[in-house]
């Protein structure tokens, strides 16, 4: 149990350090036309007030991260038995941390825009020849997902071939030292459980990839044609990274599945490297590509920009403009916009249009599933501890 608590404590520290390192990067990858969720003239991005706000944001993130590290360490030293529970709930503390760093700056940015009477373009763009969304599923890097399914098919064939020679009782659970402590009767369902989980994982990753290519990205009013070219490149690069991550995760489950079929391999360190290394490497590549590309690929320099006639000189207007659709600068709510997924105004993430019924239902169901599974897990863990 001590080792398990130590492992959970290290995981907690790793999560906090990772969040602490990533949160201050967010303003750097956000488009220059946004300041803490408020649309501003890109030329004002480095005005003294904006620079000061970004400094404060970074300071709050770092202080918050240090506080969380202290809290996590205190929990481990004082109540080591609760470390597993802490691992479940600690990631959620990043939400109030980011809110504490972001919201005061969002309020300041709203006031600043009003006081300085900044004028911005509230134009929307579309391209008649291509689209943000049309044909995007065809543009997805299908090869990765099909290769993943092919690997799973091979693993099913291996499992079926091995099934006959499996002993009647097989290990299904292992302790922290990787010594079997749970056993089950041999069955076809048990032998094929991991490949089935693997298929579900590929389906989930495909959904993420599809949502990514279908999401609506922002256009720079000064150079819409460049934005379109950047989006194309961005979608291709990140799409391949997501595909690579899918394959890495397939390998992870594949190796776990093989280890269960040949339990003597469980003690072998090489297999554990094969379990973790591909996924960690693919995630690192995805993060590096996303950070390098900037929000919606705004930092990319495509070799060819389509020779479409540029849009007219953008009309600049004062006032809130389309800021009014962004509650707290974070949550998009525009009943007139048919899009379900839009580009966030802070960071490289995608966000929902909460005015759409399907989004409301999806978010409600996800929250319900999250709260339900957490409640069940918490009750179970408390009874075990």
């Amino acid at each position, binding site marked *: 149990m001590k080792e398990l608590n130590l492992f959970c404590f290290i995981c907690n520290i790793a999560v906090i350090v990772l969040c602490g390192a990533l949160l201050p990067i967010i303003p750097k990858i956000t488009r220059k036309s946004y300041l803490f969720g408020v649309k501003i003239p890109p030329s004002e991005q480095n005005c003294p007030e904006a620079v000061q706000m970004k400094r404060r944001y970074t300071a709050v993130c770092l202080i918050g991260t240090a506080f969380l590290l202290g809290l996590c360490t205190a929990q481990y030293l004082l109540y080591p038995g609760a470390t597993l529970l802490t691992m479940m709930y600690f990631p959620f503390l990043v939400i109030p941390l980011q809110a504490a760093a972001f919201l005061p700056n969002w309020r300041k940015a709203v006031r600043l825009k009003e006081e300085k009477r900044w004028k911005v*373009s*509230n*134009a*929307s*763009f*579309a*391209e*008649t*020849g291509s*689209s*943000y*969304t*049309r044909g995007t599923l065809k543009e997805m890097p299908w090869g990765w997902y099909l290769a993943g399914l092919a690997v799973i098919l091979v693993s099913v064939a291996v499992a079926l071939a091995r099934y006959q020679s499996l002993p009647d009782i097989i290990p299904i659970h292992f302790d922290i030292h990787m010594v079997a402590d749970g056993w089950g009767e041999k069955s076809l369902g048990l032998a094929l459980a991991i490949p089935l989980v693997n298929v579900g994982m590929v389906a989930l990753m495909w959904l993420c990839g599809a949502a990514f290519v279908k999401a*609506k990205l922002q256009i720079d*009013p000064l150079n*819409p*044609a460049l934005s379109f070219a950047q989006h194309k490149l961005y979608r291709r690069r990140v799409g391949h990274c997501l595909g690579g991550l899918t394959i890495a995760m397939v390998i992870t489950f594949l190796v776990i599945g093989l280890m269960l079929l040949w339990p003597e391999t469980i003690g072998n360190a090489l297999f554990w490297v094969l379990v973790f290394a591909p996924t960690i490497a693919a995630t690192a590549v995805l993060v590096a590509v996303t950070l390098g590309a900037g929000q919606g690929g705004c930092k990319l320099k495509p070799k060819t920009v389509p020779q*479409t*006639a*540029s*849009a*007219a000189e*953008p*009309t600049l*207007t004062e*006032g809130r*403009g*389309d800021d009014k659709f962004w509650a707290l600068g974070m949550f998009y709510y*525009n009943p*007139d*916009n*048919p*899009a379900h997924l839009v580009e966030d105004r802070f960071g490289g993430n995608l966000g929902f249009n909460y005015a759409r019924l399907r989004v409301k239902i999806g978010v409600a169901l996800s929250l319900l599933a999250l709260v339900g599974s957490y409640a069940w897990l918490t009750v179970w863990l408390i009874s075990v501890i």
Partner: protein
Amino acid sequence: MIVEINTQDAEPIYEQLRDRIVLGIASGELTPGEALPSVRRLASDLGINFHTVNKSYAALSAEGYLVIDRRRGAVVARPPSGTSDARSTRRLLLAAAEAICRGTDETAFLALCSACYQKASGRPSNQENGG
């Protein structure tokens, strides 16, 4: 062709969209027979209501700029040549009236009309050429 609309503009969005498509046809960016995006896709890309795009397409169809094909959707049409509809005449009359109110004389107004005509047709005007 890039379509730009401004949701904060006083001009109704459906008219902005209608005007942009007419400008595209005039300049040759949109060619007769070319299919326009579906109502759903254009609305989604522009972040505006489906009905707004529908209204623009319906107006353009009524004016003869588009043909609504059951299979291909909205397709660019070639309006009857040499004709000028009442709406265009009314708009030009208004532009002339505004020019008069601002003290622009007839020669300057006709020169402006000529420059605008050349710009709309996608050709560089004499003024832009320095001529």
